[in-house]
């Protein structure tokens, strides 16, 4: 088990490393940096001014060196020009002596966001807290709903109830968040036609979330996931219901509700657990869309801002967080699967 964990952790670190290299290389290409320079200096900057800014900020040095600085294994670049300090580690009000020698990710410093004008770690922390709130409610709505739908339709395969619920699950998996979000807003929040039950934006939900301003985003993310998890639960439930021990229980005369609750359910829920864990990367995608659509400034919104404006430090931090979330959930799902299913051995 420990060997397995160590191997997975090694793969995690290697993946995160490879991914940051790719993102670093793609965000640090010359043209993007020039654009950044123009937006930092002034929109009418001459080529010489841009060149000077690039030189001063240390963007003219080779990429591997800059990546090592970002990682925190090479001493960070600092320079003084016109009485001001320039460099990765420099913050407002520092003198040359204050500037730390290393300031990379390994030292816990994710840099400074040029677009949101704040420490990246602060921005990420804030947005992750907001997304965490959103995800908590999504999970609370999605997981029970999906399991109930899946178990109900899987316990009697081919019944009317199964047909009805399966149609529902297929319909929800066919509806991406940006479609269901648009339709839900049009129906429940439009001022022209529709019901005006809910609010069409979730900006207010960042401070205090109410049913009125938070239900639509939560529902939008949950709907897309419900169908998929429900279908997996159904498949696993139908498989369990044809097993020998269920037939034995039936022949013994155990009542149907008892069979479902006591004999089938426990075994049928192993597969959905894995699926729910593996849903996290997908949910991340949904979070980005929904947060943009409802203007909720969580992690997804931050990711879009960072990517849209080529905010290098913020984008790198976002991708590190994303890849860690994805790989850790994969790890949990593998380990959990082993714990739940004693027939599987890790070797």
């Amino acid at each position, binding site marked *: 088990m420990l060997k397995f964990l160590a191997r997975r952790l090694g793969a995690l670190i290697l993946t995160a490393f490879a991914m940051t290299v790719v993102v670093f290389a793609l965000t640090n290409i010359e043209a993007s940096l020039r654009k950044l320079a123009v937006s930092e200096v002034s929109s009418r900057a001459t080529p010489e001014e841009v060149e000077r800014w690039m030189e001063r900020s240390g963007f003219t040095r080779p990429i591997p060196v800059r990546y090592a600085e970002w990682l925190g294994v090479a001493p960070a670049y600092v320079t003084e020009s016109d009485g001001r300090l320039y460099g990765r580690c420099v913050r407002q009000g520092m003198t040359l002596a204050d500037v730390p020698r290393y300031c990379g990710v390994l030292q816990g410093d994710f840099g400074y966001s040029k677009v949101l004008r704040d420490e990246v770690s602060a921005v990420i922390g804030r947005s992750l807290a907001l997304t965490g709130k959103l995800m908590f409610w999504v999970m609370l709505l999605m997981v029970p709903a999906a399991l109930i739908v899946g178990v109900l339709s899987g316990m009697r395969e081919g019944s009317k109830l199964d047909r009805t619920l399966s149609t529902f699950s297929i319909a929800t998996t066919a509806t991406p968040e940006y*479609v269901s979000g648009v339709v839900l807003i049009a129906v429940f929040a439009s001022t022209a036609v529709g019901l005006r039950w809910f609010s069409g934006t979730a900006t207010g939900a960042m401070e205090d979330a109410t049913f009125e301003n938070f239900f639509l985003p939560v529902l939008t993310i949950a709907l897309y996931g419900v169908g998929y998890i429900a279908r997996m639960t159904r498949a696993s439930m139908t498989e369990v219901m044809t097993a020998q021990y269920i037939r034995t229980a039936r022949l013994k005369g155990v009542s149907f509700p008892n069979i479902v609750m006591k004999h089938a359910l426990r075994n049928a829920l192993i597969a959905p657990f894995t699926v729910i864990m593996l849903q996290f990367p997908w949910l991340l995608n949904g979070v980005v869309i929904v947060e943009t659509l409802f203007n909720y400034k969580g992690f997804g919104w931050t990711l879009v801002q960072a990517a849209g404006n080529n905010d290098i430090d913020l984008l790198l931090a976002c991708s590190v967080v994303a890849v860690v979330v994805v790989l850790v959930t994969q790890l949990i799902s593998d380990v959990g699967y082993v714990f739940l299913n004693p027939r599987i051995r890790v070797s």
Partner: protein
Amino acid sequence: MEPLTWTGVLGPVVVPLMAALAVALGIAVVAQVVLSFVPGARGRTEYRDGTLALVRGPVDWAALAVRFLILALVAVVLLVIVAGIVLPDVADKGILGAMAARLWPVWLALVVMFAVSIRYQRRLGLYGRLFSSTVGMVGLALVMFWVFTAVFAPLIATHDPLSAVSGMKNVVPGTPLTREGYPYYLLGGDNLARDVFSRVVLGAAEVLKIAPFATLFAFMVGIVLGLPAGYFGGWLDTVLSFLANLVLAFPVILLFYLLVTPEIVETGIPRMMAAVLFLFPILFLVVLWNSRYRFEPARNRQRIGITLVVGLWLYAGIAWDRDPLGLVSMPANVLVVFVSVVFVNAPTVFRIVRGLTLDIRTRDYVQAAQTRGEGPWYVMLWEILPNARGPLIVDFCLRIGYTTILLGTLGFFGLGVSPESPDWGSTINEGRRLLSIYPHAAVVPAAALMSLVLGLNLLADGLREESLRD
């Protein structure tokens, strides 16, 4: 001129009828589900000689009601379509009728296709068997509806999808037009006073031009890499699996932003990726022929020759935009979108193919082929791949739907083909800004996208059901 109503002259009849049928259907479905939990709701009668027989109980009556109500609803919809085509005056047709009339080539093509397919059902293999499953037929009908709409789009569209008409900004569906040409904006105007109906119809062509081909390419890449990874295992498998997992660990949207931004496009990275990814289909076919006809040099040379000539010609045109004949080309922005969609999809296909190969590798017929002395590529492409086709076909259908969703996502973030393009994602993105005031501009493409993906999912379900049957 008066604005069009939704149902035209049929309105007084059809609207209450539809509402009543829909309400009744809802009640019947709920009743059916609830009653199925009640013990003894299935009728049962005991004859005097002690035998039991099932008779219609409440559940069965509810099921019967559901079936007939659905049929009645379909009949009403058909009535609207037929009336729309038959009625001579546009003002009488109503919006639905007028749309039905504009879509006449689609109805014709659908009727012909279904008639022919059902007539020759027994000779058509898996495709023919699809017509014995309702789910599969509904899915196929939805998908083919959009395919035919895309094919006949220039005939169907009422206006130019890009030109604005003054005074038609954000107008509601059915607003009359004072200019020459078609007299109404059937589904209203968008934020830039363009016709929503025409944009959705032409958007179908945009979406269906990219999604199936991108999926096909992703399958080629996934198959060419997945087969050896599963078959040989070892370091090849380790390396390829690591790369696939790496791509899968990227948040899709971040990947899109990284690949589609203009600065990255300028560096030529997407074109390099296209150059690599588009080689795979040629590679696939060449290996396919060579492994089969190795001992018939004449035939082998002929097949490989044709593949190379046609393949490299298309390759030069699509990937490098340097077609010597000047016939084939792909605009740079489409190419970027195409490549990123293939790139995102290929690792998942790779994992599926690899898993199937690992499973099939141990079968007896594979060992028989190995004992016969067949080469590894022959075993992979002519023994393993045909036996993995069932799950792969099903996944192909699902994946086209997923690709459509991805394309929509790209458009939603403004990274799509071009800002002007009528593809559904971009249209939804434009429409969402005024969503709470003028919902129609975003809701119409949203519904279109949903119905296409739903059709693909149902089709996949039908195929799965039918292919499991044997």
